[in-house]
């Protein structure tokens, strides 16, 4: 249904639903709404989750198999491509809904599973092995012995406001979004509230920017609104470059119109008539869905000049970018949008006063903007009641790493880390032990087990010197080496440093050198290996502190976080690496030590022949030995030995 053309019925929906908001619908019209909501489907519906994660797991093949199946068996059914419901570890997901019965969801449906499952469904026999659960809807008859999706541990503690329609609404259909009260908040806002009242409502709701810092969204708006200028801009930051985070992608892929509605409300509030969506071009699916959605909204006058005779104009431009981590910083993003190198500048002046093309500009994150339609629909008090005292609403997390369930989750603020890992995440995979969780992307902190009962809350986090970040939530079990993880994060950050200010450019590089030195054995005296090792003991912590205090932008200021938090909570692992030259988890390959078992070695000489360093000595049919000084821990001997005679110590 890509690029579905707008027919008269969309215009009718717009006229009926948006011009007289809240008025009674005629029964015939209500019928067509119900059809769009699939409350009264005339024929069976098969839903396939075709977000990027679904496609990566093979949803496109599943989709083709479903279409084949329907054609071959001559069955008349609707196939709906929907966004992601969040449970990535169960992808590809396929749902089945037959008239009168509840919608039931199946997990891990690869192409060759389609026929047996659909055979079962059409003969009213749900194949139990593959069932995930059924959706709650009391208008329908439920399947027997099938759990409700909302009762599954993964979903039970979630509160899905932003994700509410993801997985249910067809992202390419404006009609379906309209049937779900879409754009009503926007139209109500521009027709009934002056901009300063919108800012007041959002301020009262307590909505904080979800990009990382957690500042009140309305405060930023207010400054931009009050700065005098002929032009103002709103930028939606959809340049999600944190490794391990994909909240924005899933939101856009699942429900692009909601983002447009949020942008339109924010632009109206600050008085911007031009808005940009700055999006990573790697997110091809999100880009194409947004393009389609913007076009459809424009066609019915939801974007453009004099929207609904309110006098408000809005031009929305989708700006694809090559993306860089540093462009998460507002001033760098603005430079990039202007077609320059994405390098931050010092503040003030803040972008709210002097931003894009030197005009007042507000940069908001996708998740922040996604909250707006619901806030204006239900009122600020409703939003304030969700979450904690000062962190209101819900937060999305991309739950990844070593938990049983992985995926995108939306939880109210106040939930504890423990609940996220053990209830929603289903605990640690393979019955291993929890070691740490990294919240907030590569420049977040490593949080140890002692903080596991900490609630997700902006103020509690900053009290403990932790940052919320944008929503990466990487769980690590006891097979993870903390030093290796820190090295990985610092490697990422030193590559992403834009190079403008010295503490960040040089400092992250030095930190990486030190970490590299303590995770490798010195091969020879060349280079600065020994010096860096020594620095690991003496200087790592103070170096990190200097970078934190003297860097120009958020990237540099937060880059030392993984080092500092790891040194604070996992110091013994660093000491083990530095003093004993040993990695307890054997992740740091170059620190491994091998020994040849005297009893098991047959003297076949295989290892001695293959050793690239000539570090193994021995004569034929007699046990061999490894020369410790020469061994570089490459592990080739360990791999080639046919008699399991080489042990890792």
């Amino acid at each position, binding site marked *: 249904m890509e690029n579905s053309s707008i027919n008269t019925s969309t215009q009718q929906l717009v006229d009926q639903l948006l011009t007289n908001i809240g008025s009674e619908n005629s029964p015939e019209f209500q019928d067509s709404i119900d059809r769009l909501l699939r409350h009264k489907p005339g024929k069976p519906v098969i839903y396939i989750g075709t977000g990027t994660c679904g496609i990566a797991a093979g949803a496109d093949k599943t989709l083709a198999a479903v279409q084949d199946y329907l054609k071959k068996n001559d069955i008349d059914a609707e196939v709906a491509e929907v966004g992601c419901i969040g449970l990535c570890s169960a992808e590809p997901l396929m749902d089945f809904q037959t008239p009168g019965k509840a919608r039931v969801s199946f997990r891990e449906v690869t192409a060759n599973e389609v026929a047996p499952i659909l055979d079962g469904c059409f003969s009213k026999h749900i194949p139990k092995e593959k069932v995930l659960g059924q959706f709650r809807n009391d208008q329908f008859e439920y399947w027997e012995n099938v759990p409700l999706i909302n009762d599954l541990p993964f979903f039970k503690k979630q509160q899905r406001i932003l994700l509410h329609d993801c997985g249910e609404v067809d992202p390419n259909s404006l009609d379906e979004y309209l049937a779900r009260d879409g754009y009503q908040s926007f139209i109500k806002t521009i027709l009934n509230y002056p901009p300063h009242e919108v800012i007041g409502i959002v301020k009262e709701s307590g909505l904080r920017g979800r990009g990382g810092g957690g500042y009140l969204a309305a405060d930023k708006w207010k400054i931009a609104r009050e700065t005098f200028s002929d032009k103002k801009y709103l930028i939606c930051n959809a340049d999600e470059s944190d490794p391990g985070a994909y909240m924005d992608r899933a939101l856009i892929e699942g429900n692009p119109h909601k983002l447009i509605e949020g942008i339109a409300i924010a632009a109206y509030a600050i008085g911007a008539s031009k808005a940009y969506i700055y999006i990573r071009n790697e997110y091809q699916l999100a880009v194409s869905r947004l393009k389609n959605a913007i076009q459809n909204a424009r066609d019915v006058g939801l974007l453009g000049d004099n929207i609904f005779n309110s006098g408000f104009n809005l031009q929305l431009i989708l700006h694809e970018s090559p993306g860089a981590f540093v462009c998460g910083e507002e001033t760098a993003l603005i430079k990039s949008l202007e*077609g320059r190198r994405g390098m931050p500048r010092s503040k003030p002046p803040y972008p709210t006063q002097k931003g894009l093309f030197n005009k007042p500009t507000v940069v908001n994150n996708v998740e922040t903007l996604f909250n707006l339609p619901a806030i204006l629909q239900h009122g600020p008090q409703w939003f304030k009641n969700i979450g904690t005292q000062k962190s209101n609403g819900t937060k999305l997390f991309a739950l990844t790493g070593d938990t049983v369930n992985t995926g995108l989750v939306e939880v109210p603020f106040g939930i504890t880390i423990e609940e996220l890992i053990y209830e929603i995440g289903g605990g640690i995979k393979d019955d291993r032990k929890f070691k740490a969780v990294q919240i907030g992307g590569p420049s977040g902190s490593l949080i140890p087990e002692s903080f596991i009962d900490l609630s997700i809350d902006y103020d509690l986090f900053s009290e403990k010197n932790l940052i919320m970040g944008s929503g990466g939530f990487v769980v690590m079990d006891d097979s993870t080496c903390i030093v290796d993880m820190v090295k990985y994060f610092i490697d990422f950050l030193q590559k992403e440093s834009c190079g403008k200010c010295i503490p960040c450019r040089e400092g992250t590089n030095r930190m990486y050198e030190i970490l590299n030195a303590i995770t490798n054995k010195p091969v020879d005296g060349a280079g600065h290996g020994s010096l860096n090792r020594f620095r690991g003991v003496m200087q790592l912590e103070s170096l990190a502190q200097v970078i934190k205090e003297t860097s120009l932008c958020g990237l540099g200021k937060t880059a030392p976080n993984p080092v500092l938090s790891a040194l604070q909570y996992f110091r013994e692992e660093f000491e083990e690496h530095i003093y004993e030259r040993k990695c307890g988890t054997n992740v740091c390959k170059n620190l491994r030590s091998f020994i040849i078992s005297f009893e098991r070695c047959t003297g076949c000489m295989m290892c001695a022949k293959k050793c690239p360093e000539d570090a193994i000595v021995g004569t034929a049919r007699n046990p061999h030995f490894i020369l410790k000084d020469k061994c570089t821990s490459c592990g080739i001997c360990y791999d080639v030995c046919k008699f399991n005679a080489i042990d890792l110590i």
Partner: protein
Amino acid sequence: MTNVEDVLIRHKGSERQNLLPILLEVQEVDGYLSEEALTSIGKHLMVPISKIYAVATFYDFFRFSPQAKYRIKLCKGTACHMIGSETLLEELEKQLEISQGDISSDRLFSIELTQCMGACGQAPVIKINDKFYPEVSKKEIVDIISGIKAKEGK
């Protein structure tokens, strides 16, 4: 008419701020940014070519030499790293006898490390051109590569 001219016609009358979208489109059609392409973009936007290079080299995404037929992209996101993308890289390098960032001499394969692809639930992931391979193992890498090699008659 060259591909680049085609792109520039679509961006008629555009300004400096359109530089990145233009570069993206040119790379999309040509596979990389050639010196000639950058020169004509510079003329079109009235921006010195040195500045165009300055911008283009800032972003990891842009390439300045022709690309391999099969571009193997290995995700270097956190989830993939934890689950062992490093060993996959070793296997790829061993199989193709090239290292990360290089192109094989027959221009058939290249290995690139990319930022998180956002498919963390399926870690580790690799992408060959536009096709995803979820939860790949070392063994599957061997199969995939030999499959492509057989197809190309190598």
